[in-house]
């Protein structure tokens, strides 16, 4: 072989002919290969959003308004048990006839439990006049009370002062499930970003691989950027699959441009990649990284408006909540998907995400522990 005969220097070749790419590309490829060879990781990245979307589709079937659910209870005030039972059955019959009311068969004595755990929205006691038992802080209970009361009054022959003209129109994108979907996608971008990067980093530190890399001329910036770049490769299916599912199965409208959506998603992935690096920058055990990760994500699950609007929190908390990367990503996703917002409309959210993409990365680069 030529190289062995001619010695060390003669056998060396510059990078161009060594058949390898730029270190950042090689580091990213290594990261992608590692990911693709880890079946669990693939499952969580691609199937989790699908499972989540299917569950949403089952919980919120398209086009059906949810009826109010009630339990009917015998009055204990009646002297004769048989007349009480009779009154209950009459009342039950008139409620069952209503289209928007579902009467649940709850064993006597169990009604309060059913109300407590949300099986029914309202208990109707067959006294005269009827008694309604419900928690007024629950919107669906207050609604049930109005619907039931109206139905019962009509059943006793109350004359309606008028018959209002109901104009019902279906506004696509105004249902809870439509509102939820962009939030769930944002949540996926956060979780995948933080976990994939932090876990791999801590593992490499434990294996002393980081130390070995630090002993080579590899540029530290390349190493830290590679997992974030690798994340971007999977972003399209990660965001696209649940979004397509929402559009095709749930009927969620996508009002904004796909390019805007892509830019929002990329900025989100960069922000969480950078935060993941910072979280993992000095940690040496899996226990510690678990703890730190929960510390970072759990408040955002609650505060950032994924499942219920962040405006429910008091005004003094808003500056903090609005500065969180998940809040910015959720709001920007909703803006694009549901309202067709442009990047200019979303400049506030995008600036927040960009800040999260740059600042934690810069700090991580400085404080990163290579051993």
């Amino acid at each position, binding site marked *: *072989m030529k*190289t*062995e005969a001619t*010695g*060390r*220097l003669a*056998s*060396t*070749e*510059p*990078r161009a*002919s*060594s*058949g*390898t*790419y*730029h*270190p950042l*590309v*090689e*580091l990213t*490829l*290594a990261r992608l*290969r*590692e990911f693709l*060879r*880890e079946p669990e990781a693939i499952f969580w990245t691609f199937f989790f959003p699908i499972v989540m979307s299917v569950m949403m589709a089952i919980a919120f079937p398209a086009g059906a308004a949810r009826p109010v659910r009630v339990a009917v209870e015998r009055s204990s005030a009646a002297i004769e048990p048989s007349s009480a039972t009779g009154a209950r059955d009459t009342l039950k019959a008139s409620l069952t006839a209503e289209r928007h009311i579902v009467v649940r068969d709850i064993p006597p004595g169990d009604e309060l439990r059913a109300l407590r755990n949300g099986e029914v929205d309202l208990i109707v006691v067959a006294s005269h006049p009827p008694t309604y038992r419900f928690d007024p802080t629950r919107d669906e209970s207050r609604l049930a009370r109005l619907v039931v009361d109206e139905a019962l009054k009509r059943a006793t022959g109350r004359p309606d002062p008028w018959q209002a003209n109901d104009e019902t129109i279906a506004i696509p994108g105004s249902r809870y499930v439509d509102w939820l979907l962009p939030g769930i996608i944002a949540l996926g971008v956060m979780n995948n970003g933080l976990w994939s990067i932090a876990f791999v980093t801590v593992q*490499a530190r434990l*294996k*002393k*691989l980081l*130390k*070995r890399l*630090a*002993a*080579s*001329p*590899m540029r530290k910036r390349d190493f830290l950027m590679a997992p974030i770049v690798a994340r971007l490769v999977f972003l399209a299916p990660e965001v696209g699959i649940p979004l397509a599912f929402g559009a095709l199965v749930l009927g969620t409208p996508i009002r904004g441009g796909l390019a805007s959506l892509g830019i929002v998603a990329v900025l989100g992935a960069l922000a969480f990649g950078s935060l993941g690096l910072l979280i993992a920058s000095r940690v040496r055990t899996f226990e510690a990284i678990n703890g730190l990760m929960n510390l970072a994500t759990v408040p955002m699950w609650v505060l950032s408006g994924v499942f219920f609007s962040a405006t429910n929190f008091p005004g003094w908390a808003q500056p903090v909540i609005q500065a969180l990367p998940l809040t910015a990503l959720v709001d920007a996703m909703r803006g694009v998907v549901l309202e067709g917002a442009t990047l200019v409309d979303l400049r506030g959210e995008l600036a927040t995400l960009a800040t999260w993409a740059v600042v934690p990365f810069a700090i991580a680069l400085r404080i990163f522990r290579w*051993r």
Partner: protein
Amino acid sequence: MSLAVNCRNLKKRYGDVVAVDGLSFSVSRGECFGLLGPNGAGKTTTIEILEGLLTPDDGEVDVLGLRWKTHEHELRQRLGIQLQETQFTDKLTVEETLRLFRSFYDRGPTVSDLLARVELEAKRRSWVVKLSGGQKQRLSIACALAGAPDLLFLDEPTTGLDPQSRRQLWSIMGRFRENGGTVLLTTHYMDEAQTLCDRVAIVNRGRVIAMDTPQALIASFGTPTRVVHEGTLEDVFMSLTGRQLRED
């Protein structure tokens, strides 16, 4: 002759433990120099200071005539480093791992050339996790050779290997030296030091307690009075560092 490594009065402590306690030695270009010493003697700490991975509390280090403070990137391009306990990524293949390391260097052999040098061609598509101990160690050496280094640091390169694998590594090192490379290695095998090293330093509790060619050290100890076998470096080592185990 210029020096590949020159360190003077190195000191490093971890809390109460003095790992390196005023250590000095130098290695000439083209030389193979061995650091010997019992567990915990401070070999790894010393070599990591020389590799620029640890900063000494005191003392001076020149490597290839350069200082870590001012020439880190150049030094990293010119050194080959094998650490005592690196595990490479499990699910990358041998070839992919080498490609990665090769990409960090401005110049060096091709990946196929590296595979040939450490005789891992047959395993090029195997995942790292499926390699034997000897194969892993050869991969580690191949990564160290990826930048055609002038100086190779090997920390216990043959620990845990069978005699065949050890000899295979010896011949890889031999080839590297034939081409003018300098080697600084640590080992617990006295026969290995005796075979490979031009000079050795015996380190105990962070200090050099003897330094010379293996032959001179053996000679200075005199031939054993009852000649059962010729004196070996192992005899020298045992009587200098004592026969009891190091618990601390």
